[in-house]
């Protein structure tokens, strides 16, 4: 039993981490088509938000709960500034966007290094999340359960906003057909800014949560960026559902491969599977039905 529960849980857990990191990207990249290489640095900003909040508040548990919304605001604000000052002027120029945001990412890393110092800082895990829970003979860390729960909440929130609020309807309208949406009186520029705010804010939330299991250092975000793009591309652009399925699938693949080989080989295995998959199905798991011509 132990041998099944271990990898199964790890797959779900790794998947939920990937999903948290990729959820914001599935909005900014998936819905808007903006390749934002600074997404990882927004995650990094979230980790430092958790650190600063903890320094001020003191109590690890309280500060974690406060840091989640603050992280959303910090990430979102940074995204909004980036969108307004840079990305907005580079729409329809994906190559330039890619290089410009890559540069912004490097600048943000250096800023973090200058402000907080090069060594990693410590964000203390709250007492109630320390240790593990015994599930059928395998010890499951509470921090990972928390992250899984947070991923579920975040996905549900995004899905509800997109489906049931008027802001969400406007976002879907602009993604579906920008010209028609504009003709219907939707201010597409405002919608773009709003979408980018939410997507970047989610990166901030991911950053806060990831301090529970990972490090808080200037380069933290980079380790999640590539995986996040993989999830969005494999899941299919523009589909939250795709990101969810792809994240869990990639997480499980990694866990299963790793159980029977090594972590390095598992990584290679996952990449091979993705390459083959995208050869067969370049549009990803799910496609967005759009009437847009451009």
């Amino acid at each position, binding site marked *: 039993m132990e041998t099944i529960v271990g990898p199964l849980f790890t797959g779900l857990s790794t998947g939920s981490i990937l999903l948290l990191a990729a959820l914001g990207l599935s909005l900014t990249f998936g819905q808007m088509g903006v390749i934002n290489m600074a997404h990882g640095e927004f995650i990094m900003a979230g980790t430092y938000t958790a650190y600063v909040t903890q320094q001020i508040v003191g109590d690890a548990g309280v500060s974690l709960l406060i840091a989640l919304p603050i992280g959303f605001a910090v990430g979102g604000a940074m995204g909004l500034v980036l969108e307004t000052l840079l990305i907005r002027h580079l729409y329809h120029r994906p190559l330039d966007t890619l290089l410009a945001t890559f540069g912004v990412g490097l600048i943000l890393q250096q800023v973090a290094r200058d402000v907080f110092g090069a060594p990693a800082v410590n964000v203390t895990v709250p007492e109630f999340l*320390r*240790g593990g829970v015994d599930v059928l003979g395998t*010890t499951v860390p509470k921090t990972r359960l928390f992250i899984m729960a947070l991923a579920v909440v975040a996905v549900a929130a995004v899905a509800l906003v997109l489906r049931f609020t008027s802001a969400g309807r406007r976002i879907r309208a602009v993604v579906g057909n920008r010209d028609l949406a504009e003709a219907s009186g939707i201010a597409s520029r405002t919608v773009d800014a709003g979408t980018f705010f939410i997507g970047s804010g989610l990166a901030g939330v991911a950053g806060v949560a990831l301090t529970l299991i990972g*490090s808080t250092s200037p380069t933290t975000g980079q380790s999640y960026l590539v995986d996040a793009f993989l999830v969005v591309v494999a899941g299919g652009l523009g589909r939250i559902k795709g990101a969810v399925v792809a994240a869990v699938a990639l997480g499980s693949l990694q866990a299963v491969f790793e159980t029977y080989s090594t*972590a390095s080989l598992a990584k290679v295995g996952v990449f091979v599977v993705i390459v083959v998959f995208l050869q067969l199905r370049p549009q990803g798991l799910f496609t967005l039905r759009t009437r847009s011509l451009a």
Partner: protein
Amino acid sequence: MPHRSTPRAGRTARALAAAAAVAVAAATAACGSRAGDEATAAESCLDTSGDTVKVGALNSLSGTMAISETTVRDAIYLAVDQINADGGVLDKQIEIVAEDGASEPTVFAEKSEKLIREDCVAAVFGGWTSASRKAMLPVFEDNDSLLYYPVQYEGLEASENIFYSGATTNQQIVPALDYLAEAGVESMYLVGSDYVFPRTANAVINAYAEAHGIEILGEDYVPLGSTEFSTIVQQVDSAGADAVFNTLNGDSNVAFFREYTNVGLTAEDMPVMSVSIAEEEIGGIGIENIEGQLAAWNYYQTIESDTNAAFVEAFKGEYGDDRVTSDPMEASYNSVHLWAATVEKAGSFEVDDVQEAAGGVSFDGPEGTVVIDGDNNHLSKTARIGIIESDGLLHTIWESDGPIEPDPFLEGYDWAADLSVGE
């Protein structure tokens, strides 16, 4: 619905392809030919006619290794300031030419070339990863110049042009294994980052284990910078070894120890012996996740001696009270003083004279007296096992009987007979 490639999808695909191309180009550049391949050995352009002499400080100030290497830079400056305040070397003030290695081995090679040929430095201090050292080695050999490398490493190397002021395997890993064996450890699990140092270190550990009847229950590697340890920690947990030998580097340690603590493993039931965690790294991991675990180095901030007290005080005075001192910093501090002492002994800055005079040169460093071994340019060093206590510092719980002679190729160990050839 049939898939239709819209112009937007096409652009996105092209942009992604470009991103991939950038990544591939970077990777190709990283394994490309080293700088200076075409160059023939040139006469040094070192100019000692003025009242200053230039040395190079080559450390990563950007990129993933900046976390560690900026602290080495601080220690180099401290040593140079001290020597200058005492009147300099051969009555000349030392002037530092600083360069950024940017965590890229190729950049280290290029910048070394620049420091040697354009800045005409007398010696270069720096490097951290073995990859950076391996990239710089041919440059220093081709140009017949001097590199002082300050970090413990995997051994199996000796160059006339490199002085190694950190530990080689028989001054760190072998004593750590001796310590564990003495403590009754009969089985171990090996966890490391996937690059040259952990792989070579684990080859040494495997050979040692086989000869000493220690069972290796597992050997796992993660990509550098990986933060996903769920599976590995589960496997470590269920293997139930007496101890874990950890050769992880950088941020991976944070994720590893957090996961380790969270599944309920402690230093009491399965101690972890680490060889890349020093005082600097403990803060980022969080003391609650690592208290009681072990590390093997030659120097700790807590060593009780007047020399060390003065070093720690000088360092904190220069860079702030919240800073800690660690082994690689101490080793680079020593290396600057050793270079100065060698130059004084030789009475010359010329590379040949320095190489000739180096054997037997000693320095009373914070870790104790270190002496250059003229045969392999390594130092004799005292090995120490430290335990991490609640103050976030390492405290010595075992040390070797005096300094251990360097043996980079492990020639003095029968069980290591097959290792040296596998370089």
